């Protein structure tokens, strides 16, 4: 279980970093998505891995429970990363449509004449 989750986080992160270094909008956005998946799984694991237990403390007896806080954190992180991905897709689309180039590197400033301030 621990090995599975840990390697999932590791592989997702590695793939995400690799894709971000591709310097083209589409792979970069995919890489960012993979990284956010990795961090979501990682956040789950920060409350220790427990299977089949409710996220509720029992006042009367000692029973196994899973930490509810990471679940709330993951929920927030998912919402934020989803919104951010939408924003970066729109901005990257805008950049691609106006420059006909999806490289994430800035072109060398050859002429500043055609752009408007």
């Amino acid at each position: 279980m621990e090995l599975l989750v840990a390697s999932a986080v590791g592989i997702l992160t590695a793939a995400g970093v690799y894709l971000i270094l591709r310097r083209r909008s589409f792979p970069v956005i995919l890489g960012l998505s993979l990284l956010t998946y990795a961090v979501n799984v990682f956040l789950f694991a920060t409350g220790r891995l427990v299977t089949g237990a409710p996220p509720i403390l029992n006042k009367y007896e000692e029973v196994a429970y899973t930490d509810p806080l990471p679940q709330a954190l993951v929920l927030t992180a998912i919402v934020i990363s989803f919104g951010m991905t939408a924003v970066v897709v729109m901005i990257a689309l805008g950049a691609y449509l106006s420059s006909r180039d999806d490289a994430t590197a800035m072109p060398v400033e050859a002429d500043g004449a055609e752009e408007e301030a």
Partner: protein
Amino acid sequence: MMEHLLIAPVVLPALVAPFIIMVLRHHLDLQRIFSLASAVLLAGVTLALAAQAADGTVKVYELGDWPAPFGIVLVLDRLSAMMIVLTSLLALPVLLYAIGSGWDTRGSNFHALFQFQLMGIMGAFLTGDAFNLFVFFEVLLIASYGLMIHSGGTRRFQAGVQYVVFNLLGSTLFLFALGTLYSVTGTLNMADLAVKVAQIPAEDTALLRVGAVMLLLVFAIKASLLPLHFWLPSAYANAPMPVAALFAIMTKVGAYSILRIYTLVFGPEVEATAGLTESWLLPAALLTLGAGAIGVLGSKKLGRLAAFGAIASMGTLLIAISLFTQTAAAAALYYLVHSTLAAALLFLVADLVMERQGQWILPQLPMPQTGLISALFFAAAIALAGMPPLSGFLGKLLVLDATRGAALAPWIWGVILLGSLVTIIGMARAGSLLFWKGHGLPPEDTDTSAEPPVDTLPARPAQLPFVACFGLLGGLVALTVFAGPATRYAEATAAQLYAPSAYIDTVLGRTAE
């Protein structure tokens, strides 16, 4: 009623922004009125809060009335009060400038995004919860993405993609850091973190140190510390200049977070992380100052000049912060206020020039109001470089004085003084090219690189942009004239920072009752 004032800096822009979007979408004049009224009200609220915090009390606002380690708290101490006052006093002239220069008409939803941006910044300064800090970072970032690409343009979009991707990576790293800290300590409340971190046995701190360093990297990205500063020049130089002027406070959010977390949670006396931040932060800050100064010297565009000026001032600020002593922190706080106002002024003046002459630093024909603008540029340049009449000089003097006993003092002094010299040379070069060389040009000379005149320039030059610039300049002058009270406040703030037990007790205190 009065205790709810503490959440007003977050709630007020959060209410005004959707109102502007949903009700006033087609009424630019009303948008301007509401946005300005909100900014004025915000300034009043933050000043009232600062008056409450000035006597050194720490005020806690429990959201939903959940007690501290379980619920989210907003905390107001001297540092938070100072930062929110600075934000609101910066927002006012920037907003006036954006209205006066017509920047807010060149795209949609400027005012709503501006308010959301203010909400995020205020929240980041007020929150006492590490995960809530992340959330407010995201709020201010997502608003800044919208402001950054305001009014569009190819280069602006391209710079926007870089900016967004870099900051999304920073956000992911932030989450990794928070997860690591949570897995070690089981809490994310800053005051509770401070208690838990101090209790962890020294041989058990490997994960904690990893978390602390990752968190430092996140804040270093925000503060544009040298190896992580690459997003800043193209983002600020290609953003609309009034937006870049507002962004002058955003790098300070990173500096504030470093100051807050690494005095409160991973303070100098915590064994687990002792020496971890100091050994990395100081050399990086020295390099930041050097790179910023060289960037000022080498900039061909006015926007980049101002952006590198901002990086250089962040370098000086982070040098003072990275010593983690009380006197250095006081110097850093004074310099922080100064450098925010000075960088914002330089961005606004850069916009005045760019509206008339285009963005290249080249000799061109004298522009309208060249005398007034060159005087403002001169004032902004000497303020940012740290020359005598204005507060930059006092700030740098305080930083130099505070670093006298440090181990690397010769390096710090050398880099700050040389950096100031190089900045002055770079500013002087840009100023003389822009304002003096043009007088020698023949009138019919049409340089190939000259920009076509911007068609939105009004027939009668607008007064409001100058009011905004002189407002910021007035802030700098006031900071110089009232340097005595300002440094006393900074010293009291630093003293409060380095005695965090009052903060911790107040935040966690109510649970004991």
